[in-house]
């Protein structure tokens, strides 16, 4: 078991799970997860398909209740205080949560207003994600998968939540957008947001992460430190998404274990 106890003066973690068990019917999604993610930390969640990565994020977002154990997110009970919590949490899920009949602009505006966000941030967020005026006027039904992902990211950026939960954030994105995801995570962390990234492509994020936790069978089976100092190869140097996916230099490799550049205190209890 790897653990590092926080000091008593440290603020409560952004995410705290103690023996968390979540079910889908009788099927266990999480089978006793102990995990603390400190405020401002970037945590990478790795694991094979069906390991429980998405379920872990959905529990953190309050979308899936736990049937045993304790969960606290941003100091709140995700079930009892779900409305208050959800406005402070942003989840980039597999679905983009877009309405096909609405334009990109209408989708972003609705999502930000629904979450109580500042609509004044929308233009800058859309520009950041490369959503041109032509694209903003396009119905979501006509977008590609990658463009839908960009719109979902624009909503997150405009909302600027305290806790970012990113589920396979690079899926469907081209090289430039992948590099942009990297920058967005770095910026979110730099302004004090906590980021939890679940990914099959850890090489795209782990340079930013304080640590990576490996999930298997609904449990956290190991953790390793990562570094936050390396930068990705600029998008212009990556010729296409395939090259980036192949790890041909899109992002630098994670430094060896023990060379962590993270400054936040981390507690991981391996169940």
């Amino acid at each position, binding site marked *: 078991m790897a653990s590092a106890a926080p000091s008593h003066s440290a603020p409560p973690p952004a995410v705290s799970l103690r023996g968390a068990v979540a079910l889908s019917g009788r099927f266990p999604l999480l089978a006793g997860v102990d995990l603390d993610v400190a405020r401002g930390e970037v945590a990478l969640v790795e694991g094979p398909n069906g390991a429980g990565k998405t379920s872990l994020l959905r529990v953190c977002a309050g*979308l899936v209740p736990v049937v045993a154990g304790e969960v606290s997110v941003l100091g709140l009970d995700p079930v009892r205080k779900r*409305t208050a919590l959800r406005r402070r949490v942003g989840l980039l899920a597999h679905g*983009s949560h877009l*309405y096909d*009949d609405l334009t990109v602009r209408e989708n972003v505006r609705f999502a930000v207003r629904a979450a*109580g966000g500042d609509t004044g941030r929308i233009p800058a967020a859309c520009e950041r994600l490369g959503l041109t005026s032509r694209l903003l006027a396009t119905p979501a039904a006509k977008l590609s998968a990658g463009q839908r992902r960009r719109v979902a990211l624009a909503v997150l950026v405009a909302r600027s939540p305290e806790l970012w939960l990113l589920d396979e954030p690079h899926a469907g994105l081209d090289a430039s957008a992948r590099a942009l995801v990297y920058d967005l995570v770095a910026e979110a962390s730099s302004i004090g947001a906590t980021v939890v990234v679940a990914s099959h492509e850890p090489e795209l994020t782990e340079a930013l992460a304080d640590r990576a936790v490996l999930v298997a069978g609904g449990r956290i089976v190991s953790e390793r430190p990562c570094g936050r100092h390396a930068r990705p190869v600029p998008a212009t140097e990556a010729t296409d998404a395939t090259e980036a996916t192949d790890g041909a230099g899109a992002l630098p490799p994670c430094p060896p274990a023990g060379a962590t550049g993270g400054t936040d205190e981390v507690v991981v209890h391996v169940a």
Partner: protein
Amino acid sequence: MWRDAALVAGKDLRIEARSRVALGQVAPFGVVALVLFAFALGPDPVPMRRAAPGLFWVAVLFSTVLAVQRSVSVESADGARDGLRLAGLDPAGLFLGKAAAVTVQLLALEAVLGAGVVVLFGVRVTDPLLVVGSCLLGAVGLAASGTLYGALSAGLRVKETLLPFLLLPVVVPVLLAGTRLWQAGVAGGTPAEGTPWLHLVLAFDAVYVAIGVLAFGPIQESA
């Protein structure tokens, strides 16, 4: 709550304005149902006029099922329902917004179907206030109950077939009251006879709006 309701209703009505499902598909379906009823009753105008109020409300009920299914399916695509949950919207506001949007669509459908009844069945309205009032109150009750049962069936694989099975039996009071109110408001009817039915549909509306406001959140979370 009211801000969230207005936001959600505006979103749903904007989607309807773009897709025109209610007016382009559901309303024609209701009109076709009325035409089929007219064929079934034959050319004699007397039974047609007598049956017209009931047939109007049966057509409205069938159209309601389609309108509610559309309202549910809008949230099923691309994880949109999760998006609403994640936004932290007030569940009561969400319910009221969805129900308000369905109410507006039903009122438009009732206008089309009402015109169809007048043209096809030769019905003459003598108390427009009673007829319009029954349509308004009926639409509210149907939208509230439909939104509630739509949410109940939303997470199920058989939602398309389960919704009418759940909804149609519980909206019988609206069918009865609406029919009686129409009978009281058209030629040959007595407006005073509509009063108790007005109370019934008002009570139905109040009960389902209250249940929806209170129960929509837990239903949405468990669906």
